């Protein structure tokens, strides 16, 4: 059995009458790119929320990197090395980009409300600067140097997505969860984003779980794809396998006559 960093067993989640997830199981191999696709409202984001601790599944187990995290608080999961971005942008709107990313370093830093204010007289300054250096590297990597000091709330949509990614990377995660990282981007930017994702996967060795609607991207960069529909797992497999599945075609792609996607598959 391959080494899986994330195992989700039989997770079910319901909101009142709405069954968002029904007995979903999957495993993500360490170092891979794992995509979740599915129609709108299928429960993809809910799945991510269960993994990152925003929602408590009513049933099922989630194992991350050898720890049972099912009951853990979100901040403790972050500590274990789980970063994520959000579908409906969740940046700290009034902070600068730099500070936003520095928040990602939170759990790696030690200074607190007593030592931090003593700044010069404590290790705080050194610590701050060390982390700042690493954050700058991430900023460089994602090409957002020019907006480093801008207030996050005033950025355009696409840039904000990139800052979110930077913030998630700052956590030094082993696993990163991306919720529609390419929504609202044009082709060129999607290419950039794909490049970043690949780099962070290949160079930094971070496992990626990604929700995305752009089939081209999903096909090209993921190692495994899972399809959700109405809260249930439809199929898990290699991209080519998934793309040719009849159910998937009907429920999700609807690509009878779409030449572009055909050529992609």
């Amino acid at each position, binding site marked *: 059995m391959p080494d899986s960093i994330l195992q989700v067993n039989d997770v079910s989640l319901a909101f009142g009458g709405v069954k968002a997830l029904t007995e979903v199981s999957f495993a993500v191999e360490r170092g891979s790119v794992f995509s979740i696709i599915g129609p709108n409202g299928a429960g993809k984001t809910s799945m991510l*929320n269960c993994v990152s601790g925003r929602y408590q599944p009513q049933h099922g187990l989630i194992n991350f990197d050898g720890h049972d995290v099912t009951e853990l608080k979100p901040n403790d999961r972050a500590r274990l090395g789980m970063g994520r971005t959000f579908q409906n942008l969740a940046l700290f709107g009034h902070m600068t980009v730099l500070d936003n990313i520095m928040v990602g370093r939170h759990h790696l830093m030690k200074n607190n409300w007593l030592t931090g204010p003593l700044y010069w007289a404590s290790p705080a300054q050194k610590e701050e600067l060390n982390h700042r250096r690493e954050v700058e590297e991430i900023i460089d990597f994602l090409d957002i140097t020019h907006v480093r000091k801008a207030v996050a709330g005033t950025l355009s949509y696409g840039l904000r997505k990139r800052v979110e990614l930077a913030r998630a990377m700052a956590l030094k995660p082993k696993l990163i969860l991306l919720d529609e990282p390419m929504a609202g981007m044009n082709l060129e930017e999607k290419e950039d984003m794909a490049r970043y994702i690949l780099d962070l996967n290949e160079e930094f060795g971070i496992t990626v779980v990604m929700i995305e609607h752009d089939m081209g991207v999903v096909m090209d960069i993921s190692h495994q794809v899972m399809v959700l529909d109405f809260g249930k797992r439809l199929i898990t497999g290699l991209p080519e396998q998934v793309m040719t599945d009849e159910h998937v075609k009907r429920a999700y792609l609807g690509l009878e006559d779409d030449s572009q996607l055909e050529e992609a598959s």
Partner: protein
Amino acid sequence: MNFELLLQLVINGLIVGLLYGVVGMCFVLVYKSTQIVNFAQGEFLLIGAWACWAMLVYLELPFFLGFFLSLGFMALFGVAIQMIVLRPMIGEPIISVIMITIGLSIFFQALTKWIFGVAPQSFPRVFDTQTINIAGLNIELAYLMSTVIALIIMVGFFLFFKYSKHGLAMRATAFDQQVAQSLGISVKQVFAMSWGIAATVSATAGVVIGMVNGVSDSLSVIGIKVFPAVILGGLDSIVGAIVGGVVIGVLENLAEFFDSQYLHIGNMYDIAPFYVLLIILWFKPYGLFGTKDIERI
């Protein structure tokens, strides 16, 4: 245990509580449509009561005429305040707007003191019998009247928010002014309407309380008393405001009962509701009827 006293206190609490409820509803109305916590609520009561008092005493109008005229005046007043002071604040941080209402409260409290003095003034007699007796407790007629008015207003508000187009528009405005504008809702109109209504209804309460206790600047204290009531019921619930008001009213009186009979701590009447408020909020963070914030990500 002194059951007679207990019963009388509870009845007293119910009746006073309903009045808190009415004022609370105005609060909720403004909050629901503008997200503004109106710290000048008490001053609306005060100004309404003084306006009515002036019409009856200076102009010597008959009660009902004076009363309705002052309601009309208050509607205009509410709209005017909104136009002059709150309109420029549309889209500004909520807390700045709250601070503005605090400024208004300071301003109007001083203004009424200047115009009408610091001494409390009594309303002229309106009803032949001022009180009636329920279970051995004398209750002012004005209070009973207000009970009826309270219920009518409550049902009205409830239907308004649930079903009317303007009610929807108000809620939308409260949620997101920018989106509301993008839907063609005139935020200005919505604000004007809600402040107008709130001022009018508060004035009613002000007149009722003024008839019982006399008119003085302390009427504005009701504005603070109503806070726990509204929070208890849930900031955005019309029914909650009434229930919260009644709960606070009864609580005060129960506190007085236990204090005077057993505890002898003193001042429990004023403080106990706040302890209870903290306890209730602990278990129901959005009050009894308030809607939870949507926490989706």
